[in-house]
């Protein structure tokens, strides 16, 4: 493996968890999230040296991820979707409450448009600056700002999500 290959392996090692979590927020399914991250990395690997030289790999991979996800959404529904599975080793804590949060957030995210969802996840969850979100989504920073505002408004109006946020603040 060349130096660029080592750089790639290091990037995957360091960022795979964060990328998968972002992918889960986009897809709402761990199997699809893993597939989405792999797809984005498969696209990036052959040109890794160039990406490293010219671009920020993080931005490039996230852009590949969002674009792949957008193209999956345009495809038919009948692509196989893994069913929700029971975790192999359940974590300690209130599993029912965790599941309720997961389902509520998933449904709330599902009520957003694809672009609103992508902007929200990249800007709020990944904490990317507006300029970088704009780079990933190939749009103007002003569009990011306006889209985020609409997404947050919509989520704020969701009573189930509002209930969860109230609970967090108490």
């Amino acid at each position, binding site marked *: 493996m060349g130096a660029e290959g080592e750089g*790639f392996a290091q990037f995957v090692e360091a960022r795979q*968890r964060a990328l*998968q979590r972002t992918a889960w927020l986009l897809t709402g399914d761990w199997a699809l999230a893993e597939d989405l991250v*792999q797809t984005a990395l498969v696209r990036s690997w052959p040109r890794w040296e160039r990406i490293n030289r010219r671009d920020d790999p993080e931005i490039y991979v996230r852009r590949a991820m969002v674009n792949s996800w957008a193209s999956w959404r345009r495809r*038919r529904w009948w692509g196989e*979707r893994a069913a929700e599975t029971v975790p192999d080793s359940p974590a300690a804590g209130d599993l029912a409450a965790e599941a309720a949060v997961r389902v509520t957030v998933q449904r709330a995210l599902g009520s957003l448009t694809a672009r609103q969802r992508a902007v929200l996840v990249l800007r*709020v969850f990944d904490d990317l600056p507006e300029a970088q979100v704009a780079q990933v989504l190939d749009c103007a920073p002003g569009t990011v700002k306006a889209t985020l505002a609409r997404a*947050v408004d919509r989520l704020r109006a969701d009573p189930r999500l509002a209930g969860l946020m109230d609970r967090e*603040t108490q």
Partner: protein
Amino acid sequence: MNGMDRQLRDLLAAAAGDPPHRVSAAAVRRRVIRRRVAELAAGAVAVAAVAVLIPVGIGALGHGPGRPNRGPAAAGVFTSRQYRYTEKLPPAWRLARPATRRWDGTGGPGYDRPVVDLFQGPGSLQAWADAAPTHKSLAAYTSATIRASRAAHPCAPPHTDQAITIGGAPARLLTMTCPAGSGFLVEIAVTVHHGTAFVFASQHQPGTPVHKPADRAAFRTFLAGIRLHQ
């Protein structure tokens, strides 16, 4: 980031949790290599097809009309490498991609999975096929297929459930809307033959008129071409 954003971020983080599996660079490399091999194979097939078609075309130009077509007799017959059936392809149908590995019988494999034989029909119509061993009766397997489709996609209950035959074996032909209320109609034909369940499905590309009668007829013609092996 304001208070609302922070709350949202915490909620998103709590919902996302931890991924159940790791993604490794080695797995990505393996996937790239598989993709390149597939591309090379496709390229080789294309070159071979051109090499065959050019002489055939030149030959055809050299002969008058009315010369009988002496192409290979089995050109329109596909025998599955993974599953025990043969499809005599009707006109306008062709094999799009054979399955490269066997289905393990779980979930509801879609057209884009490597476990299905994928066929391209007239227009945008596609059909795909898979099979798996089963001890269930046809009725029980049909119910299981409906349950799996409703859980995974999630489909509405079947609009129609007809008794048909596939390759002479009793079969059920289901029509479902998946996801419920989406307008996407899917036809699924199920049969159980000598301990193997065969599933044949068809669906449209997005954006095309939903399930025209002509497409339903085309899928039935496709089903009529199936022969199940002993």
